[in-house]
């Protein structure tokens, strides 16, 4: 490592902030682009499972709330792709790589939403898991990314409330509704447990090395379990893991999640991966004329 890079590493590890116009090592730039682009892809792909329910939402209020949430998430994608663009990768390229299957997005968005119960579990628990990661990103060494995270976290905080409200309403409803929630929780538990990634030690995580992330994967998962398992249990729901328990020292024990499944899913082989990418590709092509017209007018 040359002296300039060494100095840069010390600066970011010591809590320093990097701006777009600052010099940065190419490896740092490449890591940032990969990480932030995946976040953008996840926001954009993450709306598809929910979009499927806009037309089937049980009430007008729920339909409006879900539509607004979808708009929020797409807005997050726009902000995030903008940050990637300033780092050197144009948005059009990010979108093309996404639909070509060359870029990743979060595991949870590769799965189907079978019932309205899934919509509640996604908005409550998937968003809860996401906000734990995103809150840690407020401390990211790359300042433009950390800054937009403020707005993103602010919006995610009421998405969780929306999800919890959906769940509580169903839990206070009929046996059938409660069953839908339990089934959805059982379906989503596996993907939720792999959401934060394998328990790679923080000092071996290159994202932690550059202080792109400041939280280890297992630390995030423990925070999720500690915050949300009690909330799940108090509603009378069952977490489908007989080994799940909180030890006396405060650490949560759980069955080893299916890491092979995680790997399979994020490399493009999830149950809904192809279908959702097809939809994105179709819209990207279908709306090309809008971009052409707008950009021609502006020129």
């Amino acid at each position: 490592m040359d002296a300039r890079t060494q100095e840069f590493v010390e600066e970011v590890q010591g809590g320093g902030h990097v701006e777009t116009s600052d010099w940065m090592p190419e490896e740092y730039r490449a890591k940032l682009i990969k990480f932030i682009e995946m976040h953008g892809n996840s926001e954009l792909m993450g709306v598809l499972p929910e979009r499927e329910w806009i037309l089937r939402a049980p009430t007008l209020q729920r339909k409006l709330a879900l539509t607004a949430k979808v708009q929020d998430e797409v807005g997050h994608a726009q902000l995030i792709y903008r940050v990637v663009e300033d780092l050197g990768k144009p948005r059009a390229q990010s979108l093309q790589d996404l639909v070509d299957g060359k870029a990743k997005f979060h595991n949870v968005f590769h799965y189907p939403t079978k019932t309205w119960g899934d919509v509640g579990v996604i908005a409550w628990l998937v968003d809860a898991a996401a906000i734990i990661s995103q809150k840690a990103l407020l401390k990211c060494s790359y300042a433009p990314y950390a800054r937009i995270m403020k707005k993103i976290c602010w919006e995610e905080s009421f998405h969780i409330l929306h999800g919890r409200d959906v769940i509580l309403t169903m839990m206070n409803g009929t046996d059938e509704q409660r069953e839908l929630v339990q089934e959805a929780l059982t379906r989503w538990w596996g993907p939720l447990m792999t959401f934060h990634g394998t328990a790679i030690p923080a000092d071996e995580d290159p994202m932690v090395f550059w202080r792109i992330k400041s939280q280890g994967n297992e630390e995030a998962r423990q925070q999720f379990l500690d915050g949300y398992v009690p909330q799940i249990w108090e509603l009378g729901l069952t977490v489908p893991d007989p080994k799940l328990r909180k030890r006396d020292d405060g650490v949560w024990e759980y069955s080893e999640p299916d890491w092979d499944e995680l790997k399979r899913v994020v490399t493009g082989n999830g149950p809904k991966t192809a279908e959702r990418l097809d939809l994105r590709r179709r819209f990207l092509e279908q709306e090309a004329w809008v971009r052409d017209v707008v950009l021609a007018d502006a020129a």
Partner: protein
Amino acid sequence: MVFEVFRQERKGQPFQHAGALAAPNAEFAEAWAREQYGRRQESEALWVVPRDEIRAVHDFPDELHKTYHRVDGYSLKAKLKEARQRAESAGALSARADLP
């Protein structure tokens, strides 16, 4: 084109940088900015500025270490202590001088 957006949260507060957006022209930039930063009434006002119009200025060398035009150039603690001690002992002296 890239536009930078500055947001005023409440009347009377400073405008703070909120983020950037890409738009083909100012009209679209305003529309996107309204969607991103104003649709929940979270802003009092926005400034939407083409990035190219911003002159960024960095690096403010202080080769002469001019601390005299900043508050940290005036460390009064030690001097004040000395002055107080001086006044105290002078007062004691003059008090003695008042003795008949």
